């Protein structure tokens, strides 16, 4: 989410910078009795003077403001998935993390290594990791235990067995 926040922040900062400067230029031009440069403020002022809060256009703009405000709040307050997970510490002053995408790649590879698994994918959250495996075998349930064992072993290797709980789903997939 930090990338999305940063892009939105950059766009808003640019809007604030150029909008503020443009307003200053228009005010100075108006004070000097010169015509407007980019913003037709005399027309805007007349139009605003004619509008009331019951007008359709004004209401549409106000609803737009509410929607943008809600979107900004969601973007600002949403925690999202963690970019990386902290592994249990071993050495003082050393913080070891593992990237979430890396963990997902590693777990899906571990799941694929179980005999009979055709494809596998993993999605890690803050507490659980969901592994979906597909097999061409007639009884996918038989693979539940070996895939779970492979995933748990890889989580152990990463030192994440106490942090992430695996949830493995094995589904049948007809071979073509």
């Amino acid at each position, binding site marked *: 989410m930090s990338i999305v926040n*940063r892009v939105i922040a950059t766009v808003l900062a640019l809007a*604030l910078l150029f909008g503020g400067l443009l307003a200053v230029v228009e005010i100075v031009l108006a004070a000097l009795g010169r015509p407007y440069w980019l913003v037709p403020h005399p027309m805007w002022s007349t139009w605003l003077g004619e509008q009331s809060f019951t007008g359709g256009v004004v209401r549409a703009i106000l609803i737009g403001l509410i929607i943008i*405000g809600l979107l900004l*709040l969601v*973007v600002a307050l949403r925690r999202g998935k963690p970019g990386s997970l902290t592994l249990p510490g071993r050495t003082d002053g050393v913080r070891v993390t593992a990237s979430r995408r890396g*963990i997902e*790649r590693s777990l899906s590879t571990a799941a694929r290594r179980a005999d009979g698994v055709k494809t596998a994918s993993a999605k890690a959250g803050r507490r659980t990791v969901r592994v979906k495996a597909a097999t061409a075998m007639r009884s996918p349930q038989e693979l539940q235990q070996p895939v779970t064992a492979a995933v748990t072993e890889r989580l152990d290797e990463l030192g994440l067995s106490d942090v992430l709980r695996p949830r493995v789903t094995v589904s049948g997939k007809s071979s073509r």
Partner: protein
Amino acid sequence: MSSRVNGVNRTILALLGLLLLAAGGLGLALGFGAFGDGDQPVLPQPVRDFARNQPWFWWAVATVCLLLALLGLRWLLAQLRTDRIGRLELTTDDRDGLTTVHTSALADAMEAEAESLRGVAGASAHVLDRGGRRVALAVDLTDYADIAEVRQALEDRLVSNMRQALDDPQLPIDIELRPGRTRSGGRGLL
């Protein structure tokens, strides 16, 4: 990227969101007659008269706009700032001479040492200033890397070497492991 900037961005975006939400909600409430007559002009005549008759009004607005533009510029520059530092000052006594270390040299040494480990496909290191200096190391691991072994080698050898080089036994170090970045066996032999 600076982690502090992320916090600032979230705070400002939340404040802007609240402001827009409040403005839109208040306007709609006015329109629906929550505060008396709903058919009020958006820009009442007394407000227009006041702006026209007070010569200082538009200069005050211009000053506020200029301040907002400066805030926007500062916010924009903050997006480009990183915590990375280019040099480390290790001088203990000026009379004995000055000691400066280019952090790129330290980073290169760390990366080379990490990449020499079996199962490591690549590494990137930076020296950061986050309330004191600290080192960040990102390590790309192969599919077949023994993660526990790589981690132990990094913590036992690389961390102690770096702390010794900088004469700082408590130097904070952040290691990010990125498993499964490549299917190759890695370049390291150790």
